């Protein structure tokens, strides 16, 4: 199988690293060669963060460049727009409709644009937009946004549901497992 590329982008603190860990665990148990590239340190402090996940028979580069991602999972609207160019021209985008103002907007130096979702749809990418924050709150915690979104992503892959649930059990602390399983289910069954 040719190498496939998934990007997870968001704002530092939103839990993108846990999402990539669940995805990585699921891919490994399916027997793929996998590389997951993360950035730690300063950019995690409320900055724009990105994780690259690549899998296939044999993966060389750990990073994804412009025009290379099969799937882009964005935890925030503006971040989807920022990283859209990394998607293949026939790639798919899953975008959480949550908005988080960057400091450039908070300080008044810039303006958060209107109509981001419409602009994303107009780009030609296949777009799934979801209010994952509401579903996470419904599952029991705003912090479960990442697992709701992994649920949406999971339903778009060929990997069986049981593999995902096992990956979740391996990755999530036991006391939050039930809530996260609920969050995953809400994402998995989302029709949008």
């Amino acid at each position, binding site marked *: 199988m040719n190498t496939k590329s998934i990007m997870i982008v968001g704002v530092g603190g939103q839990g993108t690293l846990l999402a990539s860990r669940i995805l990585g665990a699921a891919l490994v148990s399916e027997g793929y060669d*996998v*590389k997951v*590239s993360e950035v730690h340190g300063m950019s995690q402090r409320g900055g724009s963060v990105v994780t690259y996940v690549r899998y296939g028979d044999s993966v060389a580069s750990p990073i994804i460049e*412009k025009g290379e991602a099969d799937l882009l999972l964005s935890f925030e609207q503006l971040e989807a727009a920022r990283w859209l160019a990394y998607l293949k021209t026939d790639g798919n985008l899953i975008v959480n409709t949550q908005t*988080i103002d960057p*400091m450039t907007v908070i300080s008044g130096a810039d303006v958060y*644009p209107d109509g*981001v979702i419409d602009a994303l749809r107009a780009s030609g990418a296949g777009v799934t937009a979801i209010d994952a924050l509401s579903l996470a709150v419904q599952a029991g915690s705003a912090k479960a946004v990442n697992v709701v979104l992994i649920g949406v992503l999971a339903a778009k892959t060929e990997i069986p549901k049981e593999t995902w649930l096992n990956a979740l059990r391996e990755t999530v602390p036991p006391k939050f497992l039930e809530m996260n399983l609920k969050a995953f289910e809400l994402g998995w069954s989302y029709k949008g």
Partner: protein
Amino acid sequence: MKKLLLGNEAVARGLFEGGCRVASSYPGTPSTEVTECAATYDDIYSEWAPNEKVAMETALGASIAGARSFCGMKHVGLNVAADPLFTASYTGVNAGMVIVVADDPGMHSSQNEQDSRHYALASKTMMLEPADSAECLAFTKQAYALSERFDTPVILRLTTRIAHSRSLCELGEREDAGVLPYEKNIAKNVMMPAMAKGRHVVVEERVLKQTAWAESEAVDAEINKIEWHDKKIGVISAGACYQYAKEALGDKASYLKLGCVYPLPVELIRSFAAECETVYVLEELDDYIETHCRKHGIRVIGKEAFTLQGEYSQTLIEKVILGTQKPVLTVDVHVPGRPPVLCAGCPHRGLFYALKKIGVTVSGDIGCYTLGAMQPLGMIDTVICMGASVSALHGRNKADPAFSGKSVAVIGDSTFIHSGVTGLINIAYNQSNSVVIILDNSITGMTGHQQNPTTGLTIKGDPTSAVSLEKLAEAVGVHRVRVVDPYDLKECEDAIREELAVDAPSLIISRRPCALLKKVKHNPPLKVNPDKCRSCRMCMRIGCPAISFKDGKATIDFTQCVGCNVCRQLCKFDAIEG
């Protein structure tokens, strides 16, 4: 069973399997997880040292005593540890010693983009460079064997994309190397001129032996390896660049992958280059391998076609060598930048706001609080390196005593212990009227919450003695010491104004634990009462990521707010409610 490990976790596994007994490091992105993960193995004594110099000397001491040892650091940390490194190259080891240095091309989390390979060359210390997690594990184990065989510390060089990428590793068993006998040997271990002259001869002989190894045995061990495909293009590379080249060129090129970047082979490179039509050296940062090739008359294309700055990628290589580019989608919206910020509830925010209100020049340092330089706080004037805030403030105040009442230094608790304390001693000893502020958030923050000598906990979370910053300041001769709570804006402002006015060195400790620490209990999120909000934007001046303006009124994001109440002290209309 294969496991998906971070490059850094794989190095730690290599330490475990390679029989490491003593690990001492100072945290630094992207190297931190090596030691954090090493500490999860009970067979390895692990610790956070106050700085990289102490860590390397600890590791060398353990090695001379007979235990396989380790120290890890980021690239700039090796500057701090350079003193012991150069002499460790002369003494060599008893049991194996491995040094990890993690470079950060592209500066994801660093203040410069230095290329640590020059340290291997300059100190004549063997350096290996893995290209994925499996090699991180394997090379770490190899490094112990090589260290003992050639009687030298061995440096394992990582870059961000290797250290912070997960890939599959096959785990093995621990080789228990035991503790080797220690024998007193002053000709080898006491480096004063007469003995060091003798050791320099040994070092030069060692380099020749290692070069011979790099030509032949390293190839058998697949540390240096050639992959023949199409010979029109030849690629000489190492580390992450090798992976980018494979991604971009696949079977369209042949590869010489160098797992050992010091010393470099000569004949291996020459014979590879002779069989290829055009040879490229693909390496991030400096023209290190390229210069070696040119020195030996081997024709290669390197930096004239690529760059000395930032990271390489498959796209860059594809564009330069094949002249092709992938099509991209465009989106028709303006996308504002999203730089990193101080977190909601960050205790540094209140202190920076007080500094802004007073309007002082701020000598800054390395840590989360470096972000205080960003708007809307914008309250840092200089950032150089670990500890420089304190010493540079002293220099500023000596340049013109008139600066004294208008300048302060800010430095974190861990950074202060690392190398700020020597600057404070200088302030006391050489009497500058300087105000130093320690931003004591009870943790090493930016690197992801490591304990340090002020926290009272070891790397394993066990209780230990804690440095008293107050007593330390007093002991070195700074007699004006006070503690403030950075959530209390007035208290901070008053204290800073008073200390600036006094004609004596002083230390202010701004004490409040990092809001991200698990032990910190948060208050319920605050809310803006839209009927009371007069849209004056006072609350926006602190640059809290939880506060934004929607429909002409301030609003607080409940997912981020931790109820620190700093914004509340700014609102003149009591519009922010608990």
